[in-house]
């Protein structure tokens, strides 16, 4: 007869096996749809561009060099690719500002939602998800209607006589920023709300009781407790913002390129697939490094739950 220890070990083995079996379909999809293509992109970035798109199966580091450097056509000397650097910096700047803007708007929203009664909370949660019902492109065009020169904002301001000529918002960085903040706001609100909902509001009362003003309670008690949500929200906004394609194309008018537009250009008109691949991987690396730094920094004084 098996001892209790053997039975327990067998059960644990079964448990582990079942877990693998159950997650196998998901793992397969992840591999086929994400990891596989990523490997192809990585391989392409080290090949030579074909004349009409596609790649020639011939190793070349040229694409990687071209990510940040420019080779002079005549004497082959390398110099910094100013256009690429500008686009990288603009993308990072816009993504950071978008993250800050969504945080500034999303934090009070999440607080408001979490402090409602349990029934109304669900309603607010439902309202927050409504934008997801509509296609991203349509939502972006809706923003365009609001901010264009003949749009709602300019029309109202003109009619009221506050301005004499329409303010040019469309096709500027501001337009991209407004569009991205609008599109990504729910991604900031939801994780903060999830942390905030778990917050014990008696701690807030305890703060007030111990002479903390509203701002001090926010900074010293609420914020540290919902930090995991803030971190998650920032990541969820920053990553897609850095790779945003539709919003900058429509609202930026293709004039103010962001990284995704640059990458798209290489696969389309540029006919330089290896460079497009190298740029894509470069963006991924930037995101990963930024995230590691952010999480490590934020985690230092973060709350350990349990």
């Amino acid at each position, binding site marked *: 007869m098996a001892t209790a220890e053997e039975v327990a070990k067998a059960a644990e083995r079964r448990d582990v096996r079942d877990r693998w079996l159950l997650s196998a379909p998901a793992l397969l999809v992840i591999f086929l749809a994400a990891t596989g293509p990523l490997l192809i992109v990585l391989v392409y970035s080290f090949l030579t561009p074909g004349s009409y798109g596609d790649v020639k199966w011939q190793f070349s580091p040229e694409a990687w060099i071209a990510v940040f450097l420019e080779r002079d056509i005549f004497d082959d000397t390398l110099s910094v690719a100013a256009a690429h650097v500008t686009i990288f910096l603009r993308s990072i700047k816009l993504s950071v500002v978008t993250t800050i803007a969504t945080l500034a708007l999303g934090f009070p929203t999440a607080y408001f939602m979490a402090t409602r009664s349990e029934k109304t909370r669900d309603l607010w949660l439902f309202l927050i998800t409504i934008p997801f019902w509509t296609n991203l492109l349509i939502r972006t065009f809706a923003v365009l209607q609001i901010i264009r020169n003949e749009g709602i904002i300019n029309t109202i301001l003109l009619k009221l006589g506050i301005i004499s000529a329409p303010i040019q918002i469309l096709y500027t960085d501001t337009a991209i920023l407004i569009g991205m903040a609008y599109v990504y706001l729910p991604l900031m609100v939801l994780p903060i709300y999830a942390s905030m909902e778990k917050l014990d509001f008696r701690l807030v*009362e*305890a703060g*007030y009781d*111990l*002479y903390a003003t509203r701002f001090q309670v926010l900074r010293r008690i609420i914020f540290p407790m919902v930090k995991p949500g803030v971190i998650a929200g920032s990541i969820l906004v920053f990553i897609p913002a850095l790779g945003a394609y539709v919003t900058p194309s429509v609202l930026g008018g293709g004039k103010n390129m962001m990284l995704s537009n640059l990458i798209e250009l290489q696969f389309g008109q540029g006919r330089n697939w290896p460079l497009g691949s190298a740029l894509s991987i470069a963006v991924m690396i930037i995101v990963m490094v930024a995230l590691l730094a952010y999480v490590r920094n934020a985690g230092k004084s973060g709350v*350990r739950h349990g």
Partner: protein
Amino acid sequence: MPDKPDRNAIEVVNVSKIFGSGEGQVAALDTVSVSIRENEFFTLLGPSGCGKTTLLRLIAGFDFPTAGEILLYGQDIAPLPPFKRPVNTVFQSYALFPHMTVADNIGFGLEMLGKPKAEIKARVAEMLKLVKMEALAGRRTSQISGGQQQRVALARALAPQPKVLLLDEPLSALDYKLRKEMQIELKRLQHETGITFIFVTHDQEEALTMSDRIAVMSSGKILQVGSPWDIYDKPAERFVADFIGETNFLTAAISGIGNGKARATLKSGTTIEATVAEGFQPKDNATVVVRPEHAKLTNSKGDLSGTVENVVYFGTDTHIHVQLDSGEDFTVRQQNTRSAGCGFERGDKVGILIGNDAAQVLKD
């Protein structure tokens, strides 16, 4: 007990608190008035939902009264936010900040008051010593036991030297032994700090053992305020008599009221002397209460007579339930001795003697 000065720390004047609106309106407090003296251990006692925690929250400033005034040393604090009141709270759940150490928790109030760092440090050390937690100053609050959390919560609330300390059922989460220990600890702290304590509890034993004065509450009203002795021996109303300790209720005809005393003629025909609750209005059938330990069983004829229904052994004493000939129930508590049993058995015909000064006439 030292003489309490007559100064009032807190005066609650005609305070009402109504939650909700329209149909769903609930009066958590209904025109409550009470004065709490400086330096006293004052307890709000009542069952859950009686409004005791609501009253505490109004004093703390977490809620605002619908009507009435709350005076702290004569100044109306009812409209002030909690962070402007020199009053601190020990929460039922302790509500310690989980992202701070024990020392940071205790120093939080002083820090918010903008005290200099050195002063905070000294005061935190003093508080840690007061609650005997010096060794755990650097721990996170999630790493200490319930009893230790309780001490930290106390130290945190005492550190800013509040004029009044509010305690919201702080011992309810502790096990029996620890609770007994903390009861003594709380009395010691109150004595050492000289701060007015307002203590909320539903535990009548806790209230009796710890308080200088008790206010018994029910359904948003204060029914009686008095010393533990007053509350226990001279309850004014049926609810108070019933809620605190065990008691026997007898119907009686009252005559010869005077000087706080009267003659009560019980259903058995016997007349006994009784004290009368303040505000008693003469009526045909009043209720008289007698505590089980103030009556004695006898084999001969007593003031009341009946049949033993049940004998329950409790270790220190025995409860003997008697069905009176009048149909009423009566319980007698008899001190146990080691040598003999209680001497009565189920079915015995017995008499009950009610001691002198054992009966109280209720006003309702």
